[in-house]
């Protein structure tokens, strides 16, 4: 348990250093826009994440004060939904679809290739900060299975052996 606690604390420390204090002021317009109701929390967090790329403790605390929502509630929401992340991301997020249709058509082979060749597993970021790999449950583009999104681009009908070639195109 102690080890685990230490690990959790370390992560928080790391992310505090990443965002300078003055940058947190960027959150003010979001706070102003969404003040008044807890029901605006998810859209507010979404915008904050678009701004910083992730939601470190600093950001959550600031939102907590601004929106007058208890910090544990915000932390609870952030950790519940897979869309939100507390740790920084790579420059490109690879969203590999592991939905049924993609799975049947070879997404598993693609995952194995990425793990082997890029060296990152699901949820991890490569050391050079280039890629973060996410497994998603159906992108709703089953007609093009197997599907992989890199950033905003959707790549469909991928032959597993071509996976690396597509990824290499993103610096």
């Amino acid at each position: 348990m102690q080890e685990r606690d230490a690990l959790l604390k370390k992560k928080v420390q790391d992310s505090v250093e990443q965002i300078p204090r003055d940058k947190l002021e960027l959150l003010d317009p979001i706070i102003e826009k969404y003040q008044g109701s807890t029901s605006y929390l998810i859209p507010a967090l979404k915008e904050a994440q678009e701004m910083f790329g992730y939601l470190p403790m600093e950001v959550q605390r600031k939102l907590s004060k601004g929106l007058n929502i208890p910090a544990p509630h915000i932390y609870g929401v952030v950790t519940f939904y897979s869309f939100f992340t507390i740790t920084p991301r790579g420059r490109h997020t690879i969203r590999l679809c592991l939905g049924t249709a993609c799975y049947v058509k070879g997404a598993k082979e693609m995952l194995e290739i990425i793990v082997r060749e890029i060296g990152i597993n699901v949820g991890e970021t490569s050391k050079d900060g280039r890629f973060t790999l996410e497994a998603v449950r159906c992108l709703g583009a089953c007609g093009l299975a197997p599907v992989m999104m890199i950033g905003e681009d959707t790549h469909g009908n991928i032959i597993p052996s071509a996976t690396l070639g597509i990824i290499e195109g993103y610096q």
Partner: protein
Amino acid sequence: MCASPYYRLQIMMCAGTGCIASGSLDVRQAFERELTKRNLQNEVQIVMTGCNGFCAMGPLVVVYPDGVFYNQVKPEHVPLIVEEHILKGRVLEKLLFKDEKAKGRVPLMKDIGFFGLQRLIVLRNRGLIDAENIDEYIARDGYAGLAKALTEMTPEQVIEEVKTSGLRGRGGGGFPTGLKWEECRRYDNFPKYTICNGDEGDPGAFMDRSVMEGDPHSVLEGMAISGYGIGAEQGYIYVRAEYPLAIQRLQKAIEDARSYGLLGRNILGKGFDFDIAIAPGAGAFVCGESTALMYSIEGRRGMPRIKPPRSAEAGLWNQPTNLNNVETFANLNPIILNGGEWFASIGTENSKGTKVFALTGAVTNVGLVEVPMGTTLSSLIFDIGGGIPKKRKFKAAQIGGPSGGCIPLGMEDVEIDYESLQGVGAMMGSGGVVVMDEMTCMVDTARFFTNFSVDESCGKCTPCREGLKVMFDKLTDIVEGRGQEGDVEFLIELGHHINNTSHCGLGKSAANPVLSTIRYFRDEYDAHIRDKHCPALVCPDLIDFEVIEEKCKMCGMCFKNCPSNAIVWEKKKVAWIDKSKCTRCRTCIMNCKFGAIR
């Protein structure tokens, strides 16, 4: 609008997510360039429509008034289409749909089996209107249903009409929509809410996405009708975060409807106030459950609560709330306009109307289809879906996503409606049909779905949170060769416990994929456990690949495609697999045209 020019031809381009990913926006630019170059921009109109449904063949272009259907159009084909079809009036043979059975090309959209056998109610505007243009929706009887309800009917009559229609919830549960509304109307506690569930999380399902992207107004109209019926003045659409295009189009549709006075205060001068807001999701499968979804709109963790009280009594912010699926709402305009009896004349005795299915997996025509209830599974897969590609055999169809089950070979004549599917151990779910061929291992598939449910379990109640984990570990043991006698019985017992003791609908059905694969493919489980062999050659720890010498035609396809150089091959010699290098990735099997590797 009187200033708009007369168009000789219209080019309908699919702008659904599938076709955009295949490059339809580039094709559109190419058309614009080419038409301007030849000074045809005032004669030929380009319309970007919602999802056409035939996603695998994208980008799709349909030229009206004839309805000529071109598939897999690339920007470089565009000058040719303009030259041949638009200018000379000749159909461009090579881009037409190729019918494998008839061994020919089919020029007209209506003659293609995939489209011909469908009956469109929910998808009535599919490929015909510009999703972002409210006038085109109105021109196709849009908002006429709302107008009829507001001007000619009382809220009670609206509910009565929906009850007559026999419409049942399209989200999976199949609860009669009219009864749901009636119950919600009974409570005299205001404000009330009506919610559209657009959190389509089932892997393999994309019908709701297609409706929200392709015909957003039909959802808004259905919600307004339900608001009038139950007495709600505010509606919410909960859309999952993975569908940015749907959110964007719904937002535009809401603004347009407001500016036309079809949403907002005093709609059509009838004193009915109704407005809609979008509540975006943030990636949690469990939020498709009604109470979890409401918590999520309230800005909390989306965890289901125990019912009763039902949402109709105490839902969003503890107020009476009605929640329906996207597809359910899209059915309402035709029901109000044509009457409940018309709708009830379609379908089977207990399941009325049509159902949209997302047909995916190992099937030739992947896409979105709408068929009357009671259509057989085989008709869906073989007549509309065009059968299994690569001459492989049909093995099973998975219906209902992670809550559903498999329907094996030999039972494909089952009629698709709520009751018959439950009878064979599957369920309607939201309507995702994933076809599996003989290359799919059922144990591995069951493990995949269990893994999904383990990840997506909210963790509130123990049977789902812990039981599924144990189930997953057991399945992992089996596919990795550590299976023991008695494992299957253990899985069956555990599965029944999970299904019987979980709180919410997701937990109650989470063991279905395992139970149904055991029911129909027990022999495959036994092969994994007793013989330590995977009959479908999927599980890497239980297979050894080798070349069958008699069948090998020495073509070298396996050699060329092997990613780990494990195949030894020379011209005119039978290939040979170096087992120390083989990673069992199956690339060679997939590429061998002669079935010479096993």
